[in-house]
């Protein structure tokens, strides 16, 4: 009998083109390569330099998301690009896709969206696949039982040219989360708790498999949120074994096999789960029932606390620098902090369930007058679904701006910015210095917490709203 294998082992072994040796890395085959405008141009240049084409255009899928504006075109149909260079970069992707025969989801596509929102929605992301993209949050796709990770631009070129990557096998970690998350504690809170536990480098060198009752009971969107944030603990990939929830989500999506072929594929996918006695390099068990709604207070995603806890006192120079940048003092209550901006969106929390959760909090309430709130759907599909449910009206009535899909305020390169010194409660994934604009201060939280903070105008959780009447 062959040795017991983990989900990760199975994916790694079934994609080995050439095994690792003492002096050379492994070569692994890539099933799906996602491409966006920012990290691809120099990858395509590699092809030109070498005079070769894209090996498997049918395994490559492109979208516009990072540097695209989220405001509509003007009367002449001109999109308000932040800079001419951003516009040129989008045009470069368009040209490259045309030249090499790659499917691109441009402005006119009903599927265009943030790369990690679009892939799963189209059913392009499937269990058992290896998936890469020039973007660290590619870990999102691991929610489907895929081995998915971010790569650099040189490697984008390698995959375009050879559909393969040079890799050394990472170590494996399993994080089992027992019990159930309490009411109002979301997948985002679970992820923030895990990153707080591991620290932002605790996952370095590992691929993490999430397991346990709390993980199994998440829906696919929650699982994506969890896997998305895996990179924030330093691990390149997070994954969850496919189960009925996975299969039900995928059935009928445009890029999966249809009819009987789908059910056949599903049978194979369900066998990918880690064998019972599979061995991991590291095993961690956490308890979901003790977790609470969380928010970050510092300048990395590991610096978070349960809402209601005081800001911890600095215990190192780096910690001190972080508190200084954020304008917090050790011992201070987070609720004392006024919020200037609230952002609902990104590949972490820009899916339909996230917008529903935020709308649910905002329904019948108003955004505090001093708060600017942006709601940015993760894709055109999310936008359509939200509008069909009337969510956009709830947001507008509450005083929030309803925008077009894109990365928006997650990173400061498309014109959606938080000004220097301002505090944003954001559903995105990074609270690094200046991530949302030079001098901006970011507090990461769930859509529920972000919406509650928008209503009260200061850091707050949903339970703090009980005192606010619904009009």
């Amino acid at each position, binding site marked *: 009998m062959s040795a017991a294998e983990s989900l990760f082992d199975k994916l790694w072994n079934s994609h080995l083109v050439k095994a690792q040796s003492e002096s050379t890395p492994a070569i692994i085959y890539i099933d799906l390569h996602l491409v966006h405008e920012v990290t691809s141009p120099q990858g395509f240049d590699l092809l030109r330099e070498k005079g070769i084409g894209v090996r498997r255009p049918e395994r490559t899928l492109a979208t516009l998301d990072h540097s695209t504006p989220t405001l509509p075109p003007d009367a002449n149909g001109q999109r308000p690009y932040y800079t001419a260079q951003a516009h040129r970069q989008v045009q470069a992707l368009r040209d490259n896709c045309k030249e090499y025969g790659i499917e691109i989801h441009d402005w006119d596509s009903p599927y265009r969206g943030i790369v990690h929102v679009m892939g799963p929605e189209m059913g392009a992301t499937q269990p058992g696949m290896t998936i890469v993209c020039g973007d660290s949050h590619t870990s999102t796709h691991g929610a489907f039982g895929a081995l998915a990770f971010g790569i*650099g631009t040189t490697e984008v070129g390698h995959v375009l040219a050879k559909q*393969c990557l040079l890799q050394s096998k990472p170590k494996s970690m399993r994080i089992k989360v027992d019990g159930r998350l309490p009411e109002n504690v979301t997948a985002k809170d679970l992820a923030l708790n895990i990153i707080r536990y591991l620290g*932002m480098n605790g996952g370095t060198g590992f691929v993490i498999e999430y397991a346990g009752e709390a993980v199994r009971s998440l829906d696919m969107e929650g699982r994506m949120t969890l896997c998305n944030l895996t990179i924030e603990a330093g691990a390149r990939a997070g994954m969850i074994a496919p189960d009925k929830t996975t299969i039900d989500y995928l059935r009928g999506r445009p890029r999966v096999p249809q009819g009987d072929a789908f059910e056949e594929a599903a049978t194979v996918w369900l066998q990918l789960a880690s064998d019972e006695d599979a061995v991991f390099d590291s095993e961690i068990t956490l308890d979901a029932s003790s977790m609470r709604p969380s928010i970050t207070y510092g300048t990395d995603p590991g610096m978070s606390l349960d809402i209601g806890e005081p800001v911890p006192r600095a215990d190192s120079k780096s910690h001190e620098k972080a508190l200084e940048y954020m304008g917090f003092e050790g011992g201070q209550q987070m609720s004392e902090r006024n919020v200037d901006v609230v952002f609902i969106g990104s590949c972490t929390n820009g899916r339909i369930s996230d917008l529903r959760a935020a709308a649910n909090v905002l329904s019948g309430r108003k955004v505090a007058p001093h708060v600017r709130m942006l709601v940015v759907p993760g894709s055109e599909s999310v936008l359509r679904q939200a509008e069909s449910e009337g969510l956009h009206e709830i947001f507008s009535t509450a005083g929030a701006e309803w925008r077009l899909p894109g990365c928006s305020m997650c990173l400061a*390169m498309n014109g959606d910015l938080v000004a220097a010194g301002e505090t944003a409660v954001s559903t995105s994934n990074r609270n690094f210095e200046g991530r949302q604009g030079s001098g901006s201060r970011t507090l990461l939280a769930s859509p529920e917490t972000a919406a509650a903070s928008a209503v009260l105008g200061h850091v707050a959780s949903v339970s703090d709203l009980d005192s606010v009447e619904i009009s």
Partner: protein
Amino acid sequence: MQAITKLTGPILVLEQENIDTDQIIPARFLTATDFDGIGEHLFADWRLDANGEPKPGHVLNEPRARRSPILVGGHNFGCGSSREHAPHALLGFGFRVVISSQIADIFRSNSQNVGLLPVVLEADQHATLVQMDGEEITVDLEECNVVVKTSDGVEHCWPFSIDPFARHCLMRGLDRFEFLNQAEDAIVAFEENR
């Protein structure tokens, strides 16, 4: 890609832990379609004011910063996004080596791909090194060691380990793509057999 065998110069220390790629090169500088001139934006928000003028007093604005090929960063250097612009910006500014007690996975492989040498030392060695701003250091990739001779006569020699293939390519300035390219038969066989 320029080969790296042995480099000597004054150490430049940025002690902060968790220096992420958004600090190394903020997102607003990622809209170019090439890497030309990107070194001028290295650590832009730390080093430059709102008008793009150097902030007086920042260590990276001292003239010696441009003469130092070796940057020592705090623990967990290069975390965050996969942007290859980060090692390109460091190279463009003049660095050839980054030393820390931990280097993030994607940043490390990106660095190796573009010819920036990532070196990881033990925590106590790194703690000693961050106290040695400005001292002369030699990083020897042939011997896989770091040697510091301080001005008061103390000498340290610390070995480091590096992936053998990365070392092979960095020492010769080899493009790793060639290795992939030579595996064409294996790739074809894989595609046919699956």
